[in-house]
């Protein structure tokens, strides 16, 4: 930018200021550390010094039982829970996006689909997910339909997709509606069709805005994959219960909880990262 060579050296005042900033930063790190240690330490001490801690430790935090239950829970977790949500999330996104966009459509031909979309979201958000799992996992095979699978895994997946699809559709719709009308106007002005305006202008902005609530729903879905265990799929929770019933030790439940937590945290950090990057790119300096 400049023509003259830059010979700037920080002035004494600036150096002093940097030193002050460093001191302030150190002070706030110190305060946060002390506060954290006090609060977490207090909680820990409170728990460990409670009268029943010894028996709680033996039934919930037994290292031997954790080791013994680990492999079977891992197997069940991987084959059912992880697969359920990996497949489920993709299907839910597709279904929810279709429903949300459909509800925003103006075309008269699509009116019947619009009506179905409204009924679908109202109905499926209203039914408890576990009931949906029961109804589909036990009801569909009972219909004895030809060529339709009786797999509990399959119908459990369908139940989760239908239930979460309705929630996520509403989240996405809220995002789409939050995009300012002037954006549609400028897309119109460029000669884009309504579908193109949705596809290239409105939906990308809308989705970006609702990424945190979307993630919320997905984390919730990851946990709710345990509901299919209730219908008899041998998932991680089922495996833990199996072990607990035989050994009279609840440690496997803690192990399952650990699996779910470990699964959700990376996703949360990754989404934070994406969001941060988009913000840096689009909003530089505009405050």
């Amino acid at each position, binding site marked *: *930018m*400049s023509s003259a060579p*830059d010979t*700037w050296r*920080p*002035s004494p*005042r600036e150096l002093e200021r940097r030193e002050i*900033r460093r001191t*302030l930063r150190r002070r706030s790190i110190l305060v946060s550390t002390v506060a954290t240690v006090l609060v977490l330490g207090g909680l820990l001490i409170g728990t460990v010094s409670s009268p029943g801690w010894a028996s709680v430790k033996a039934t919930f935090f037994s290292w031997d039982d954790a080791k013994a239950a680990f492999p079977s829970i891992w197997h069940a977790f991987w084959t059912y829970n992880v697969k359920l949500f990996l497949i489920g999330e993709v299907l839910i996104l597709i279904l929810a996006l279709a429903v949300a966009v459909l509800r925003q459509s103006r075309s008269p031909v699509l009116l019947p689909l619009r009506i179905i979309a409204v009924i679908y979201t109202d109905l499926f958000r209203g039914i408890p997910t576990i009931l949906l799992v029961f109804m589909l996992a036990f009801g569909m095979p009972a219909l004895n339909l030809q060529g339709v699978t009786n797999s509990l895994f399959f119908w459990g997946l369908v139940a989760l997709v239908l239930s979460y699809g309705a929630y996520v559709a509403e989240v996405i719709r809220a995002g789409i509606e939050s995009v300012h009308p002037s954006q549609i106007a400028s897309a119109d002005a460029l000669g884009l069709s309504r579908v193109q305006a949705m596809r290239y202008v409105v939906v990308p902005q809308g989705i970006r805005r609702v990424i945190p609530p979307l993630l919320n729903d997905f984390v919730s879905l990851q946990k709710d994959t345990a509901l299919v265990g209730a219908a008899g799929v041998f998932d991680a929770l089922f495996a833990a219960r199996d072990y607990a019933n035989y050994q009279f030790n609840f440690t496997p439940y803690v192990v399952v909880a650990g699996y779910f937590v470990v699964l959700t945290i990376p996703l949360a950090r990754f989404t934070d990262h994406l969001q941060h990057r988009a913000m840096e790119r689009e909003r530089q300096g505009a405050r």
Partner: protein
Amino acid sequence: MSEALLEVTDLRKSYGDKIVLRDIDLRVRTHDVICLIGSSGSGKSTLLRCLNLLEQIDDGVIEFEGREISDPRLDPRAVRSRVGMVFQAYNLFPHLTVLDNCTLAPRRVHGVTKGEAEQRARDLLARFGLADQADKHPDRMSGGQQQRAALVRALCTQPTLLLLDEITAALDPELVGEVLTIVRELAEQGTTMILATHEMAFARDVATAVCFLDEGRILEQGPPAEIFSRPREERTRRFLSRVLPPA
């Protein structure tokens, strides 16, 4: 020489490798109207944002009302509650009515009662021809009305210094007039202002001093008569010949 309200010494600001402001010296006394002129990207907006502590500076000293405000220990809100700022894009809060926009800071920051804040806001709105707009939401008004409302919002806290960042740049010529009339009135009443502007005729009439910024430096500063008719620097002459209508 009277005590300066705002004094900037050797200010420097960079974003990474890019130096946006360098060697900035500026002295503003009460009732001064300082116009910052220069092409886009010359650092006018950044300078205003530094004065309001919206940007952290990389070197130099800013003194306001006799106190160094570039000290990291200082709470920036103490400064901002005394300095008003109006942005190019209005930046009114779209979820609040004009009246609520104008009473938010007086009530929540300055502790003025609801009744008093509303009275003050309505008086100012009436003075600026917005009496009937008070209960509307900003997006329902024209650009000129929004910018006038933004000015009222800044004035409602009774700032000792007003920073105006190209407040007419997003307006059509007719609306520019209605906003500038108000700024002119404020200047005549003795409001201390620093404004970044592309309105040269306005700067010539109203400013007590004009600063020409180029590549992050104040290349030249002085009374408008001097800068506009006898610019010292070649670069200033070139800029003015492009933006001033041929005389």
